[in-house]
């Protein structure tokens, strides 16, 4: 594929944010994923051309970061936190159960291309453990059953809404565009804070 005039213009606008253009490499890689779902050869070549780098230099960067995928992931990329705290609280059981349920291993994708699965590291939501991220949206306080329901819904095209996020779960590509710095206008959806975030504030209001 080659990129449309509009896509090339978006890339230029991303580059224009920075004082030095090489800094745009990460948002450009996110943008390639917004278009193709993963880091394609064409994407690497286009970024190299725009930033006046070799494709090896761009590849060296893209392969350093785990969010850049070398092969397609599902429309709904499910990350189960199995770092110590979430693992102990149930993350290990959730991962194993969902892996069995979907018939895929770590980094696997279902045959219909709808759901992929990844063990993820701590995602800064430990007070909501066990935590699952789908397309990097928060699904707090998960159970084996809730995650099975979640992936079944996703495969049927009707995933549940994130706990702290937009009203409707967006696809992997759509969220990649947000990470590239393109607004989707959904910042206003979802709560300001979840219940655990408000623990101390509520206690202080009770005079504790």
């Amino acid at each position, binding site marked *: 594929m080659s990129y449309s005039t509009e896509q090339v213009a978006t890339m230029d606008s991303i580059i224009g944010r920075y004082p030095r253009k090489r800094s745009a490499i990460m948002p450009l890689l996110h943008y390639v994923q917004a278009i193709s779902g993963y880091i394609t050869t064409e994407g690497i070549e286009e970024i190299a051309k725009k930033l006046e780098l070799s494709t090896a230099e761009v590849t060296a960067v893209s392969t350093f970061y785990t969010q850049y995928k070398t092969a397609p992931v599902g429309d709904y990329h499910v990350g189960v936190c199995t*770092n110590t705290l979430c693992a102990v609280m149930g993350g290990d059981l959730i991962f194993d159960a969902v892996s069995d349920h979907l018939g895929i291993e770590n980094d696997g994708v279902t045959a219909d291309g709808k759901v992929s699965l990844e063990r993820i590291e701590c995602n800064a939501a430990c007070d909501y453990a066990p935590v699952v991220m789908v397309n990097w949206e928060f699904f707090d306080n998960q159970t084996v059953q809730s995650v099975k329901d979640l992936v079944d819904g996703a495969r049927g095209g009707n995933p549940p809404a994130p706990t702290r996020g937009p009203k409707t779960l967006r696809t992997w590509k759509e969220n990649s565009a947000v990470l590239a710095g393109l607004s989707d206008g959904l910042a206003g959806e979802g709560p300001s804070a979840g219940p655990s975030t408000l623990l101390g504030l509520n206690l202080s209001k009770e005079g*504790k």
Partner: protein
Amino acid sequence: MSKLSPVLSAHWDEPDSFTIAGYKRHGGYNAAIKALAMQPDEVITLIKDSGLRGRGGAGFPTGLKWSFIPQGDGKEHYLVINADESEPGTCKDTPLLMANPHVLLEGMIIASYAIRANQAFIYIRGEVVHVVRRVQQAIAEAYSAGLLGKNIGGTGFDLDIILHVGAGAYICGEETALLDSLEGFRGQPRLRPPFPAIAGLYARPTVVNNVESIASVPAIIARGNDWFQTMGTEKSRGFTLYSLSGHVTNPGQIEAPLGITLRELLELAGGVRAGHTLKFWTPGGSSTPLFTAEHLDVPLDYEGVAAAGSMLGTKALQIFDETTCIVRAVLRWTEFYKHESCGKCTPCREGTWWLVQIIRDLEAGKGVPADLDKLIDITNNIAGRSFCALADGAASPIISSIKYFRSEYEAHLTHGGCPFDPMASTLFSTAVHA
């Protein structure tokens, strides 16, 4: 009187707390206007005198860091915010930015003005899309309100803020790796000196501050040092976010004066989960040496935790009860450090790999008695021998766990594997059995 001091978290329960209207309703951006009417050096002095110390882990005095930026050097200066919150257990900056990104932007205006920077960056981790949305929107709102861009508030001060989204690399929370990543390279730490204050982003003088540190600045400017210093302890002034997670009845964020103890925090959070007892905990994330029940009364400030043999770190209090196997917990953290080692320095890259193999064998009942000393030996050979502190972090849980729970490691040898039921430590063990 309440032990708590909600300042950062004071309005998080309002449905529009993350909007500029919600922020301004409670005096938001007044501190920036006040600071822009001061001399930049006065702002630095005020923050220096406040006693505010970095909330990202190291506890370096914030105002002192700002004062290291050379002035009149004719070069661009940069402020870079470290919002790459990834230390296991750490979950404070993420909810802060979701609930109130404007307080960070206001702090950035003040800090940039003080260090004479006209461009500032927020480096946020890429695995939190909704937080990215909130920060994006806040920046757009601040530009529309004339609080960012050219001639802010008619003062002649210009500031642009650029949001930069990471892509999944714990090491980018290390400030020099973060700068390399922001420049468009693999995120690998730099050898220091030179420090970022002299040669940081694009080899220009740069301040790198944690989200919570800078978010604490507007309140100090608005309410003054006398007020700020009523909270905390002599060398650890002010309020901070403590994050309780794990086997605690009510996990969550508790904002309190520095120096509160885990005993007090647990009491507020309803204690360890019903029917269980505290076994071990981290005071400030997985890179800080473990504590046990004997440390319940350690004041959680920089000096108190250090005196007890650990570090305040990010104040990420991960609570584990007696159902948790120490070897399993430490193995998983060690796997994390192995996975996140950037590979630049041999001791860290190779050492974390070996540590994982040995602990995996121990957990699986394939270890031998000499493994414990070998673990200690390897940690001694990787800690302090790399460009950054990742290997030191990997060593912390291993050394401290062997110190407090050596017999439990040994039980894995005699038992022929892990003597614990992993189901018992989960939150929903009954639901799984049903």
